[in-house]
């Protein structure tokens, strides 16, 4: 410890030394001033005594000076001696010593009174004064003339001892006052700084980890009391921030730690505890070499030093084995050197994030992307607003649209006009309610072509249940639909005429019957049997017969209104389904056209043949029976037309 530190190392010492020094200086000054003043007073008194004595001597010696009575003057000077009087002398007007307490001086001349003697109006003059001697001369005046001088030297006499005593006492008082002042200054500084010392003690303890300590607050509102409360408030704020930081650090899923420059852990969180399989209390203060195998510890230390050398964050990725369960995790570590306010290195802050799950997720995404890319089905991903955010190559292959052409557009442009609003509403409803919709859908390609698609649409929801995306996967089933149509044609149509067969007639009768029953409209069921067909078939062969049947079928189709159906039951029997009949007359008009059309001759090569039609008609709801019965009733009416001479029609129920 240097002398400077010893004297001024602490505020308490500064205060004590400062006050003591000021006190010592002031005391010295005051006492010195007092001593000087007292000495000045003594000297002034000494001078005044000399004045008085000189005046007296001048007055009493006037006659003797005038008479130059040296003996008398000698008596005066010898008799005038008293305490402190150094000399008395009487001098004539020219400066000759007429009498002196030292007789040897008589007859000599004073050499230092020339100016005084030359004054036109001499008066008592102090020729010189110091504490040892006051030298005063008073003129001896007679009849208005200066006839001589009485000169007196007065020393300290009794004052000498008094002056010395004053000086000595002043020194003693000063020294005693300085000592007492120093002690009082020390006690005062100790009293003043006691609470500061307590604050400092608390600060040291807090710095060493005792964060719960607080400076004592005695409620005083002086500066130190304010500082103490401010200090405590600061500690509270720091504790609050420390708790926040601690909570943050402990809550972070990342591994967080702080090391000092020597590599000792100063802080770590539970995530890091898993690395060591130890609790924080067993980690803090230790280095990696005390916690880990040497190769790992060396590795970590190298990265710590690298961060220190870099002076900023340094990243690295590595696999780490967790000591608590032996699992291996892939972490990305960021190490940053930490400095104090003055730029001194404090240590290294490390944060390691477990990227194992993300790594695996990335691999899965990579796999999913591969599937997305190579999948044969078209895939469209839209956001919640049905705007396309991605499509796969199969989409482009199927629809012809390139990915860049569709991104950001709603998927509605892909829909075929075949689907109305009802269809789409049903799809969206299903997606909203069930989260999925599957079905067939016609899609419009880039060039207007339509494709039948087998579509699956799934709505993706977030954790809150809000739909975030739609994923639509579709397969082009146009070929399958064509095949289905072909099969349907085969199953429901007459191969010769292409007209619906009995099976399809039954379906359509049922539909028309239901529609008529709901709409309260009339449904006419007419059964046609060709007259004269058999002879043709027999004479001209089956092929000719088939050609007649195809021609009749075509003529029947032309006679019908929109929505009506003509079906071939087999042989030369046909059935007409007349829907939405306003009344029987409307049916009659159709039947009249049929009779006319059928009766027209048919050219079969070089042959012209003709047939006619016998038609039995029944009308629902007049004939309020089942569909099957309606057919039987029409059949019955057809026979009555046959009976009536053919080429006519009869309404079931008419006489």
């Amino acid at each position, binding site marked *: 410890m240097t002398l400077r530190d010893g004297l001024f190392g602490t505020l308490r010492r500064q205060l004590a030394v400062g006050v003591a020094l000021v006190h010592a200086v002031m005391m010295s000054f005051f006492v010195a001033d007092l001593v000087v003043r007292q000495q000045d007073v003594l000297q002034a008194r000494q001078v005044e005594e000399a004045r008085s004595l000189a005046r007296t001597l001048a007055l009493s010696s006037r006659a003797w000076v005038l008479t130059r009575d040296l003996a008398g003057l000698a008596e005066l000077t010898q008799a005038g001696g008293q305490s402190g009087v150094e000399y008395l002398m009487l001098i004539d007007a020219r*400066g000759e010593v007429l009498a002196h307490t030292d007789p040897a001086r008589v007859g000599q001349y004073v050499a230092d009174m020339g100016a005084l003697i030359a004054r036109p109006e001499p008066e008592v003059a102090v020729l010189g004064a110091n504490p040892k001697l006051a030298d005063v001369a008073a003129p001896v005046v007679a009849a208005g003339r200066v006839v001589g001088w009485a000169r007196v030297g007065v020393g300290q006499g009794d004052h000498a001892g008094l002056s010395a005593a004053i000086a000595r006492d002043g020194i003693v008082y000063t020294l005693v006052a300085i000592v007492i002042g120093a002690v009082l200054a020390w006690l005062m500084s100790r009293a003043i700084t006691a609470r500061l010392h307590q604050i400092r003690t608390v600060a040291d303890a807090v710095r060493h980890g005792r964060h719960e300590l607080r400076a004592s607050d005695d409620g005083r509102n002086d500066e130190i009391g304010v500082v103490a409360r401010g200090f405590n408030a600061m500690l509270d704020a720091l504790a609050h921030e420390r708790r926040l930081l601690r909570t943050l650090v402990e809550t972070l899923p990342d591994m967080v730690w702080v090391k000092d420059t020597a590599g000792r852990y100063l802080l770590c969180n539970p995530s890091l505890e898993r690395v060591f399989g130890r609790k924080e209390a067993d980690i803090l203060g230790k280095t990696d070499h005390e916690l880990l195998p040497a190769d790992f510890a060396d590795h970590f230390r190298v990265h710590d030093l690298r961060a220190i050398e870099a002076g900023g964050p340094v990243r690295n990725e590595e696999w780490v084995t967790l000591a608590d369960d032996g699992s291996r995790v892939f972490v990305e570590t960021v190490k940053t050197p930490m400095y104090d306010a003055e730029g001194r290195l404090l240590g290294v802050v490390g944060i390691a994030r477990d990227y194992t799950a993300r790594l695996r997720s990335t691999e899965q995404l990579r796999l999913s992307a591969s599937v997305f890319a190579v999948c044969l089905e078209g895939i469209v991903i839209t956001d919640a607003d049905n705007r396309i955010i991605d499509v796969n190559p199969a989409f482009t292959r199927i629809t012809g649209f390139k990915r860049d052409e569709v991104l950001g557009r709603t998927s509605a442009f892909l829909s075929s006009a075949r689907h109305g609003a009802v269809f789409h509403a049903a799809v969206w409803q299903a997606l909203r309610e069930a989260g999925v919709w599957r079905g067939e859908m016609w899609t419009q390609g880039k060039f207007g072509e339509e494709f039948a698609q087998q579509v699956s649409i799934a709505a993706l929801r977030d954790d809150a249940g809000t739909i975030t995306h739609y994923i639509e996967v579709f397969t082009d089933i146009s070929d399958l639909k064509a095949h289905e149509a072909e099969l349907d044609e085969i199953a429901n149509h007459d191969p010769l005429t292409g007209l619906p067969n009995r099976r399809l007639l039954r379906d359509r009768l049922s539909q028309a019957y239901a529609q008529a029953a709901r709409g309260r409209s009339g449904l006419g069921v007419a059964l046609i049997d060709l007259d004269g067909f058999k002879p043709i078939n027999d004479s001209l062969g089956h092929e000719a017969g088939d050609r007649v049947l195809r021609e009749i079928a075509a003529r029947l189709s032309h006679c019908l209104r929109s929505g009506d159906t003509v079906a071939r039951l087999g042989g030369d029997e046909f059935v007409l389904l007349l829907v939405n009949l306003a009344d029987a007359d409307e049916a009659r008009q159709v039947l009249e056209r049929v009779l006319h059309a059928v009766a027209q001759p048919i050219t079969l090569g070089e042959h012209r043949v003709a047939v006619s039609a016998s038609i039995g008609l029944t009308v629902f709801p007049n004939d309020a029976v089942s569909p099957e019965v309606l057919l039987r009733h029409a059949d019955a009416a057809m026979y009555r037309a046959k009976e009536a001479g053919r080429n006519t029609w009869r309404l079931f129920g008419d006489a």
Partner: protein
Amino acid sequence: MLLAACAREEPVVGPRFQVAPPATTGEVLYRLAVHPLHNPTKLLQVYGGLTDYLSARLNAHRIELEASNDYAHFENKAARRRPEFLLPNPYQAWRALGYGYRVIAEAGDSADFRGVFVVRRDRVPAAPAALRGQALCYPAPTALAAAMLPQLWLARQGLDVRGETESIYVGSQESAILSAYRGECAVGVTWSLPWRAFQRTHPAEAAELVAVWQTDPLINNAVMARDDLPSDLIAQVQGVLLAMVTEDEGRALLQRLEIARFNPADDVRYRHALQAVLDEYVARFGALP
């Protein structure tokens, strides 16, 4: 600081001496000792003007007045040849001739040098014989006009001065007059010049007094120079004194000195004037004082 305060640098204080007189003006100082006509201060008041007058007219010379305590003191100085110049009474002049002084002038007219007997008006004696058994105050035994001549005068009047009266010597002319005024003695004996001065300076007291007798005149006071002085200096002094009456300032000063003029005089004249009186005095009283 305290030690410094106690050890202040002190100025050198105290007289410095030298053996030789300071030669600041180059003037040579001479002293004129006047016999104690008055007390010293009064003497200075009266005769200070004379020395100033002389000094102003002497080239490179200065004359200062020197008083004496009493006649003995004055005569002692003369006997020791201390003053360069003397202004003694005639008897002292006669004695000073023996000490080496020479008469250079007479201070005033001879007729003014006579003894005066002063008494209180309420105690006026009818005749000198009425003084028998009374005390008479004189300035000094050697006061020629104020003691020796009056005592001879009383003796001539038939009075046995030594046996029938008490002679009290009070030191000065003024004291002798005041003694009569206070009644300490029946007669205060002085001579004409001090009596005129007293009447002027003490009119109230003088009004209570009256001069009842006076002696015959003799010869006035002398001005003497020590015989070792330069003759030209003596001549200068003598010239100035004799010429005073010829100028206004000198006359004013003579008036203040209460003498008419300084007259030429020499040793012979004084020896001659004194010898008869002194012989009678010895004859009547046995010895000179």
